[in-house]
């Protein structure tokens, strides 16, 4: 039974009893219990969005059962969940074929499709494309409080971008977007003292490590961090590696 005080709910997955907390997404709860559900647009760090449609499951609540995406479905007491029913798999395969046509240059898409035995798509491909418009870059950028990115356009023209497709004044080049990007289409390149994220029209100077001289983070990013942490910028003058070494050195016996 549900424990109301702790907001714990109980539900069944393929007959097995599972627990979740109120407000938790079904997908998180499923994964916590070791069930495998594919996804491309979900990340624990940010809110669910429901774009890729891969996390489909069958949910029975009362007498009614339906297919739904699990990432944005809140766990509830008494749900009965089935994972890979014939219907779920049939639709997931078509969604994968659509994704394979939409972004054939994305390795993550090709790999996932291959796991479902899909090597080719019956649909008209856009050969160069490697972004699936999952919006994770936008959501992480919002979560770190920078808000440099957003969607522009509608229908197939919809795409994640910076305001007016120009360099965003807000972007600090932190690279969180690249970290969460499921297809690797956001590329961060550090070279010749600059950080470049071509997708966002960004080129900013890197701070050189006081100790090793390597460019390690954009100046604007460090300034922002120092401001947030109320630290002197001098505290961030070393790259993480050198900072670690210096810290370790304090503990070394002579």
């Amino acid at each position, binding site marked *: 039974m549900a424990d109301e005080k702790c907001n714990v709910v109980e539900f069944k997955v393929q007959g097995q009893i599972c627990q979740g907390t109120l407000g938790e997404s079904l997908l998180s709860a499923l994964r916590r219990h070791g069930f495998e559900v594919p996804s491309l647009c979900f990340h624990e760090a940010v809110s669910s*969005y429901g774009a890729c449609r891969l996390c489909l499951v069958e949910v029975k609540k009362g007498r009614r059962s339906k297919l739904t995406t699990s990432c944005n479905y*809140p766990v509830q007491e008494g749900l009965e969940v089935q994972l890979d029913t014939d219907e779920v798999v049939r639709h997931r395969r078509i*969604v994968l074929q659509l994704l394979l046509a*939409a972004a054939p240059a994305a390795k993550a898409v090709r790999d996932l499709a291959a796991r479902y035995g899909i090597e080719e798509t019956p649909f*008209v491909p856009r050969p160069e494309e490697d972004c699936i*418009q999952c919006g994770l870059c936008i959501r992480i950028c919002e979560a770190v409080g920078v808000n440099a990115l957003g969607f522009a356009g*509608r*229908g197939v023209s*919809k795409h994640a971008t910076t305001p007016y497709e120009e360099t965003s004044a807000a972007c600090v080049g932190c690279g969180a977007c690249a970290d969460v990007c499921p297809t690797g289409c956001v590329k961060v390149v550090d070279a010749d003292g600059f950080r470049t994220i071509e997708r966002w029209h960004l080129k900013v100077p890197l701070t050189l490590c006081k100790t090793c001289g390597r460019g390690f983070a954009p100046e604007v990013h460090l300034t922002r961090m120092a401001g947030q942490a109320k630290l002197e910028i001098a505290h961030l003058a070393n790259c993480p590696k050198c900072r670690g070494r210096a810290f370790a050195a304090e503990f070394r016996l002579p």
Partner: protein
Amino acid sequence: METRFHSVADLEAYRRQLQAVRGPDRKIVSVCAGTGCRACGARGLAEVFREEIAKSNLEVELRVTGCQGFCERSPVVVVQPQSIFYQRVKAIDVPEILTETVEKGTAIQRLLYTDSDGRTYEREQDVPFYRHQTRSLLAFNGQIDPDSIDDYIAVGGYAALGKVLQERKPEEIVDLILRSGLRGRGGGGFPAGVKWQSCRKAHAADGIRYILCNGDEGDPGAFMDCALMEGNPHLVLEGMILGAFAIGFPGQPKGYIYVRNEYPLAVERLTRAIEQARRCGLLGKGILGTELDFDILINKGGGAFVCGESTALMASIEGFVGEPRAKHIHTAEQGLFDKPTNLNNVETWANVPLIISRGLEWFTSIGTGDVSKDPWGGSKGTKIFALVGKVNNTGLVEVPMGSTLRHIIWDVGGGPPPGKKFKAVQTGGPSGGCLPESLLDLPVDFDRLTEAGSMMGSGGMIVMDESTCMVDLARYFLHFLADESCGKCVSCREGLAQLCAIVDRICKGEGREGDLELLKDLSTTVQTASLCGLGQTAANPLLSTMRYFEEEYISHIHEHRCSAKVCKTLIRYVIDDSCDGCMACNAQCGTKAIQGGKKARHTIDDSLCTRCGVCMDVCKRNAIHVES
């Protein structure tokens, strides 16, 4: 004159006063200035009436109204008390109307409506277009100047509100709407009472509940909500105030009307109506001297079709991009600004005052099914349709739920124009379905239409004849929806784009073996896996045309033939023996595709022809034909 009503008694006294001076014999010239009539010069016409009346000594009221429905015959004018109906009225007709009809009461024959059999009708209620309708919502449009709250009060406006505030509890009103079986007119047909009940029951920490009206009306060709907002704004407001009482009292109900930006006149009329209602004590603090506080703000939409979807609409009011979200947590519990929210369509709200003033029995006597135990058990009341396409009488049509398509298209609509043969009717707007001749006796209600693979939608109804290609039609709607998809979810964004690509190639004669199966499989996924109603219904035009007109798809794919002779790559223009070589087509052809000199029979070089059809238009001997 506007007075502030401090009580229901104040309002009723004022109404009696108005009605006393407005006897049934009053002379009125009512000029329709709805969308269709305005396009045909109704505003200028009204001005001429005003000037001529001023010049004359006639005691007659000029009333410029919202859409009266018979747009085909714009501009229309009705002269009271005889209810003489004039159509296609011009400025030069005005003096004669005043002297002959207003003064002497005689009808001017040439301005009367004549049907295709040559019969002429004098009174509005006898004109078949009106006679075959049941106009309970639209009936007011001809009796009201939308800018006059007095006109609305005189016909019984705000009486339902007065009655409710005086005698009824909020729960009773929710229950009444539940038992009336009123279902949402905005597309989904969800029982309004069920929605009201969950919103009333939802926990509202600070007492705030939002009462919203959806006036986004994004379906191309639809204008029923426009006609209500422009023609009778107070009816919509009264519905919302009643909703605020039923759903949000006691507490802090707050109202918004979301109107599409392309309806500036609706915005203007609603704005004025709201200001009037505030001054009269019908909106704001202490409505009619009771404890009910409620006000309404207008929010102009951004113009995207998807903004009509409930969650996208709420995002848009909040200032975000109009993108739908999953509704696993109902908006009745967490909607606008995360507060309990009740959204209804304009026409749904407009029904509320009538249900209350005329009673449950009246409402449930109209329509289909039995809703006494289950609000899903039928479709009650009337529905307004925007009847357009290949039909004699285009315009706004209000009929009881359950009327057959045949009744709407033939009795009211007058059937297809002479020489045209009915082929199909598209109901429910862009994501509705196409129904063939064999289903003309289908009763039009929420459930029958859905079973037939179409839907009620908001009430669009497009009649088509043999000159429409069903594959091309599906292609048109698919492209509309693909362009209007917000692009958030893969199944809708990519799925619709691929459906378009497949249907495009079929229309070009490049359809492949297996395309029909691919279309069906992909459609099912788009319907099942998509996040919002747009994707979930977008395949309807495709699936319904494949279901009822499959042979057209097959002939496009396998024979490269378009029987309606529409799909450009599948047709050829040819010149027959009757050509006398007059050179007219030759001179007009933009690509020099027509060969043959003077007096010599012409021929068309198919490789140069762009199928523009100009040659056919200019040929005096009808020697040019389209083949497929």
